[in-house]
């Protein structure tokens, strides 16, 4: 029996509706179920807050939808907003139970485990005994290190869409039919197969605190990000090399969350004197390197008080380099000047006078 005979003209309309839904862009099904972007798509949506602080209320829809939180509805994070126009939005609690179902536990997703890791780490506001640490206001919260995270798919195949291997997607489509699911899953997996941020971006994130002179002084730290930038690793990271170790590669125990960083004195820390040797001689980095290899002063600063040997050694080479090359440049300049004015002479001018 034909479709027409069974359903009459409504059969075709039904197909048309289904086809329209099927071919609708995925952004239609994006996070903006509450139509928040009617207002928040405008870059000028902003105000001065009660305490004089500037509040930019703009959300770039295109970027947001491509990001990790692209399928989370606005009210999934801004849980206090239940009506439009809404009351002043409260700060987002990143630990809130999300509307997304975590597939392995089939429970609502949450970042609570991150908070647990962070509370146990060197970045906790409290010490071992549960007492507030001095200058605990300096300890990072989520937004100090994270903005809206973006997918960073492996980008070695760029033939059709940048950063996406169409061949791999073709294999996904054999079993999976929903294009939005395939896209999201592909991005999620391939992002996790390598660093989710470039070593330079990681170092920059750490530098916001670890290169802040006042913060470093308050916590009696060294300027670790700055000294990283002076090393071979840091210089390569600055040139966007993806293979060099960043801060997390050395300070996070292998296989653990990046939030599980511990003090050097903590036996769980990768930088603990007993564990330090395993950082450099891992299979990925310098296999076979001895334990002593990792004992070099990786965060040695150019500082007379803290590292006098390195300071004077570096100063000697700086003076040697400058003292050689600058006179050379001066001689070159004078030589060129003579070539430009071959007959110029102070003596002749005096004779004329």
């Amino acid at each position, binding site marked *: 029996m034909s479709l027409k005979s069974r359903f009459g003209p409504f059969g075709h309309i039904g197909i048309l509706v289904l086809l329209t839904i099927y071919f609708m862009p995925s952004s239609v099904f994006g996070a903006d179920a509450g139509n928040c972007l*009617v207002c928040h798509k405008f870059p*000028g*949506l902003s105000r001065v807050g009660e*305490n004089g602080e*500037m*509040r930019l209320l703009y959300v770039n829809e295109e970027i947001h939808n491509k990001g990790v939180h692209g399928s989370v509805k606005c009210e999934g994070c801004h849980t206090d907003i*239940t009506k439009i126009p809404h009351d*002043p939005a409260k700060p987002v609690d990143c630990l809130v139970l999300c509307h997304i179902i975590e597939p392995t536990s089939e429970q609502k997703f949450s970042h609570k485990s991150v908070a647990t890791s962070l509370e146990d780490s060197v970045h906790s506001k409290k010490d071992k005994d549960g007492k507030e640490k001095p200058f605990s206001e300096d300890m990072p919260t989520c937004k100090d290190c994270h903005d809206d995270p973006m*997918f960073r798919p492996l980008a070695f195949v760029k033939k059709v869409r940048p950063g996406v291997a169409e061949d791999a997607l073709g294999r996904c489509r054999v079993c999976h039919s929903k294009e939005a699911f395939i896209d999201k899953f592909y991005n999620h997996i391939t992002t996790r197969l390598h660093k989710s941020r470039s070593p330079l971006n990681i170092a920059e994130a750490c530098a916001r605190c670890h290169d802040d002179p006042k913060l470093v002084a308050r916590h009696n730290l060294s300027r670790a990000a700055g000294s990283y930038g002076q090393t071979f690793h840091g210089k390569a990271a600055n040139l966007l090399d993806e293979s060099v170790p960043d801060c997390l590669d050395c300070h996070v125990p292998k296989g653990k969350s990046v939030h599980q960083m511990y003090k050097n004195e903590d036996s769980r820390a990768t930088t603990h004197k007993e564990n330090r040797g395993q950082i450099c001689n891992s299979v990925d980095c310098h296999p076979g390197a001895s334990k002593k290899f990792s004992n070099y002063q990786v965060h040695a600063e150019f500082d007379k008080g803290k590292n006098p040997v390195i300071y004077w050694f570096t100063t000697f080479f700086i003076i040697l380099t400058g003292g050689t090359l600058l006179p050379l*440049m001066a001689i070159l300049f004078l030589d060129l000047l003579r070539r430009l004015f071959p007959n110029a002479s102070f003596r002749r001018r005096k004779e004329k006078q």
Partner: protein
Amino acid sequence: MKCFLTKLYILAFMALVVFFGVLIWKLTFAHLIHEYHARKGHVSIEHTGEPDKKDIGKQTFETMILESEDRVKHYLGYRVLEEQRIKGHFHHIDFDIGPDNRSYCRSCHGDMPHDKVKDVRAFLNMHAFFIACQTCHVKLEEGEKTNVYKWYDRKTGDIVDSPVNGAPPGTYNAKIIPFVRENGQLVRIDSEDKIQFATEYKKNEKVLSEGQKSMAKKLIHKFISKVPVTCESCHTNNNPTLPLAELGYPKTRIDSITSTEVVGMIKKYTEFHMPKMLSPGEKPATPPQQPPVPLLSPVPPAAPPAAPPAQH
């Protein structure tokens, strides 16, 4: 000719030598000098506490976003997302818009001038991003109206073609300015002499007497009407104040601007709930019953005791 080329070659070489000389200086001795001064510098150890409100007050949208030097590049592999970094701002911005160099209102009123009416201040500031102050705050009499509005470039101040078509809403590098008729000629309302007068006033403000200040302010604000153009004047199908089609708005955008979605929100300005159909199993929140709020108006409503204090 050959001699000239040789001289040119030598000059270029000299410039190169100077460039390398400066570079070597910066990398060697300047580095030592910098380190010496940095070592002498005293870093006080104190709690961060609350930021100084005076300093925050001096910030403007321009200094925060448009001229911010704290830029960050996100290396995503397939693209580099470069944008200003705003401390505490979670969502990506990914847009750069030049400062409005033409407006003389900004020097006193700032980039986010609307602050009085909490319900709508963010909306009004959003409009101020692409509509010049005079468009709403100068109400021309019937005889003075020309119904001519044009776009001007925020950076150069020159009249430009419509930037609307194809650009995401509100992300224009231009603003709408009204035109008036002076001596039979169509001229923009923010004429050069008005800008000159306001600039001179700002420059000499400190040395002027109170009387002089008052007089100058009166002259600057001579054209400003007490009641500005209301939202409904433009968000309507019925002869809107701004000729949207002539300003280059495509039909889809005009339909959106005058749609029930926008107009309805302005007119009713009452709460409605997010659709809960995508959250099965959740009980819909029962909001407290509140009386509808009066129409959107930049002037505070007379007595709205139970109006929802919606703020953006």
